[in-house]
């Protein structure tokens, strides 16, 4: 070889790139042309100002009211919905996790079905689930708990099954060699390996569920969302301000605690 030829960019690649650009441009033109921009409402500026001033001067009196229906109780309600919903899903997703794990079920079809069911549950929005549960158990926190409990199975089941797929088979073989029964193998060889991951993922999902629980009230499924949407509808911006502050504070504190616990567990 006398001289090394300069590498030429493959032509096909460039063609692909250009067709992607054209496709993207077409999508954007289509999307932008479909959005009705009939100009902002004239009141938009005023309302923005009102909201900002409301958030900057929150209604501190709402934090605690002796007769009930105050911020603290709403936040506690939200927290309770998130805790119970997470617990239910962490409990219910265990069989799904083993079902969807490649190394636990025999045959690819079984694990594939399990994975499909989990992704189906995952794509079903929790708010729609809450709407349906409201029809079943009536409006209130319980509908929110059930919705979160069912929806979270999708994500937790997927994460748990990945955890189960990554276990080390050494301890299982060792226990089988000593003549342990199936249940004993499960308890002493599988469970200790997956517990840290389970706890960490459950806490992570709890953080997500707390955010979801704070909006479930918008459709009547309990928690702080209900007073929030009422305050918005009656344009009581200082009350909206204090509720927003309350949600932000609660979510931040829970995130910090849960993050600390997750670091400790794993």
């Amino acid at each position, binding site marked *: 070889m006398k001289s090394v030829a300069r590498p030429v960019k493959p032509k096909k690649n460039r063609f692909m790139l250009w067709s992607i650009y054209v496709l993207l441009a077409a999508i954007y033109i289509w999307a932008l042309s479909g*959005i009705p921009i009939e100009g902002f409402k004239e009141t938009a500026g005023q309302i923005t100002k009102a909201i900002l001033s409301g958030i900057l001067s929150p209604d501190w009196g709402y934090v605690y009211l002796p007769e009930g229906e105050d911020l603290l109780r709403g936040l506690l309600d939200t927290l309770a919905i998130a805790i119970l919903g997470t617990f239910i899903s962490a409990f219910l997703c265990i069989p799904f996790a083993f079902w969807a794990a490649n190394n636990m079920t025999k045959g690819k079809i079984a694990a594939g079905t399990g994975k499909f069911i989990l992704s189906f549950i995952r794509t079903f929005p929790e*708010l729609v689930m809450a709407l349906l549960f409201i029809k079943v158990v009536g409006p209130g926190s*319980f509908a929110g708990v059930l919705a979160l409990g069912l929806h979270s199975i999708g994500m937790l089941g997927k994460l748990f099954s990945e955890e189960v797929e990554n276990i080390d088979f050494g301890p299982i073989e060792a226990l089988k060699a000593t003549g342990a029964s199936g249940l004993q193998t499960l308890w002493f060889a599988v469970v200790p390996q997956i517990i840290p991951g389970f706890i960490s993922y459950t806490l992570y999902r709890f953080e997500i569920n707390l955010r979801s629980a704070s*909006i479930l009230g918008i459709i009547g499924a309990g928690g702080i969302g209900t007073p929030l949407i009422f305050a918005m509808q009656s344009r009581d911006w200082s009350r909206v301000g204090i509720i927003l502050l309350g949600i932000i504070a609660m979510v931040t504190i829970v995130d910090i605690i849960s993050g600390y616990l997750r670091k400790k567990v794993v």
Partner: protein
Amino acid sequence: MKRIESLNMNRLTKQEIPKAPTKIKHYLTTALIVLLIGWSAYQTESSFIDFVEGFPNMFDLLVQMYPPSWSYFDDIVPAMLDTFRMAVIGTTMGALLAVPFALLCASNIAASNWIYYPFRFILNLIRTIPELLLAAIFVAIFGLGPLPGIFALAVFSMGIIAKLTYEAMESIDKGPLEAMTAVGANKIQWIVYSVVPQVSPYFVSFVLYTFEINIRAAAILGLVGAGGIGEYYDKTLGFLEYDKVSTIIIFTLMVVLLIDYISTKLREKLL
């Protein structure tokens, strides 16, 4: 003689068996969790009996949802296209906003912690607000329609994309950065030629991932009046037209799964 030996053995084994660690911590943790769950059940007035009593209702609901009203598809296609539009524009706006934010949050680019700590704090605050809440606020400002939905999605996706991107920026290779400094590049050249090429595949992947999330979010934003297919839940549930509700649900699921599939394939190609 034998007895002495066995005695010795006993002593030996006794010494070798390590003491089991105390389990008090585990018991306390379990007790705490049980207490928390009990309190939550009390606070939310959850009862198993209610659930069992409500079970026939659920069955009724499922019966009423079947069969889905296929003719309703034609009515909701425009709303679904609106949802798609909202997600596309919202994600793009969020991605554009996220670029400067991510640059200001990354500790190896915004060199002073007087810059990146405050911006990270703002970012964390933004990410604590759920997208539906943002949508409700924007609906109050701009009125009903897809516009507040787009703004809500833009703010929401900016939070996600900026966080993921600044974390990716912090883990890039230092070599090109130092090389650019050594040849005397100014700050903008430095970013364009050493940071952007390393981060851009990740950035595109994060944008696609956020787009998947936004399609799901956009499908429910209509519940607070922010446009898209979500508005139809209210309309149909209010009139107890459950067959139409199941049509909406099935349609949404199909679109979400399709977009997830395409986006996952694209992301696999990118990284």
